[in-house]
């Protein structure tokens, strides 16, 4: 068995997810996001960081195997399930946080329109945990400078159910970033 440093292994680290308008300053990895960064709310245990982008392989008559591989396209997708179902939290994911309407009533109400609209709002996103670094018991975070909320799974209500909002966040290439960082980056504190 190869030797490991116990810090290499990342177990038991649910991520806290923050969103802000695109262009918001990214906090240092060991600071709690503040300013316009908003916690999206409590999420169900599993959050997923997915790489997409199949390679295309090319061969020629000189070799038995493939000789060239290219990746014409790639995507970076995060999925999580929101269980804090305030209209503000739901509205933020549906791009309509500003459309939540408060009415003093009586009865006092808030209203969330259900239509998301033709053009999604892009957001910046941080996904972080206080001990996510593989080098020490220190913070690390994913920074996605620009992305949009994509598919939302059905919300199931029922006697034995919890209504949840499962959603995808898909990175868009942010041209304001250096080339390698356009779909986001992962930064970890090392001490």
């Amino acid at each position, binding site marked *: *068995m190869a*030797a*490991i*440093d*116990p*810090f290499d*292994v990342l*177990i*038991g*680290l*649910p991520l806290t997810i923050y969103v802000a308008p695109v262009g918001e300053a990214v906090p240092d990895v060991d600071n709690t996001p503040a300013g316009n960064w908003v916690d999206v709310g409590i999420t169900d245990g599993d959050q997923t960081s997915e790489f997409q982008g199949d390679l295309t392989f090319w061969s020629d008559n000189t070799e038995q195997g493939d000789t060239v591989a290219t990746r014409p396209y790639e995507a970076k997708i995060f999925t999580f399930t929101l269980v804090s179902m305030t209209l503000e939290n739901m509205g933020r994911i549906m791009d309509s946080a500003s459309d939540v309407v408060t009415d003093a009533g009586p009865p006092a109400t808030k209203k969330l329109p259900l239509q998301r609209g033709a053009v999604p709002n892009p957001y910046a996103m941080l996904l972080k*945990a*206080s*001990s996510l670094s593989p080098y020490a*018991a220190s913070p690390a975070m994913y920074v996605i400078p620009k992305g949009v909320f994509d598919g939302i799974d059905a919300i199931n209500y029922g006697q034995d159910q919890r209504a949840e909002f499962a959603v995808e966040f898909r990175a868009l290439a942010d041209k304001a970033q250096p080339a390698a960082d356009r779909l986001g980056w992962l930064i970890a504190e090392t001490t």
Partner: protein
Amino acid sequence: MINPLEAVIKYLKDDADLAVLVDDRIANKQHFGAKVSPWDTPSKALRLRMDGGTPELDVPIQTIRIEAMCYGETPYDAMEVWFRLVAISRSAGRKVIANLTDGDALIYSFNRLSEGSQVQDPDTDIDAMLGFFQATVAETAIT
């Protein structure tokens, strides 16, 4: 090799709110009626025992199942100790536990495997709350 139960016991002994309830009465064996330094009978206390678990074969990590017996003067007091363990188990993130016999340990997680069951300890008849936890602890010491 780090002793995972030693790491968990030290982790719980370092919790100030649990110490308010059980003082230093956290051990691998209950000490009610012991000949040396017995625990007050009855009192709030915590006994933790290793209870199997599914082994991790490829990575030097132990995922131990821990049987927690939370004692109390009354069923309510036993529940108080249990609920403090529940609160501790909600704290996510890895923890460094320093100065164990074999070095410093890294606890990855301490999660409940069950809700609690109210029981009476068969040896002492003290009211207790029985529950199970899984602790994931690195086998190698942190350098």
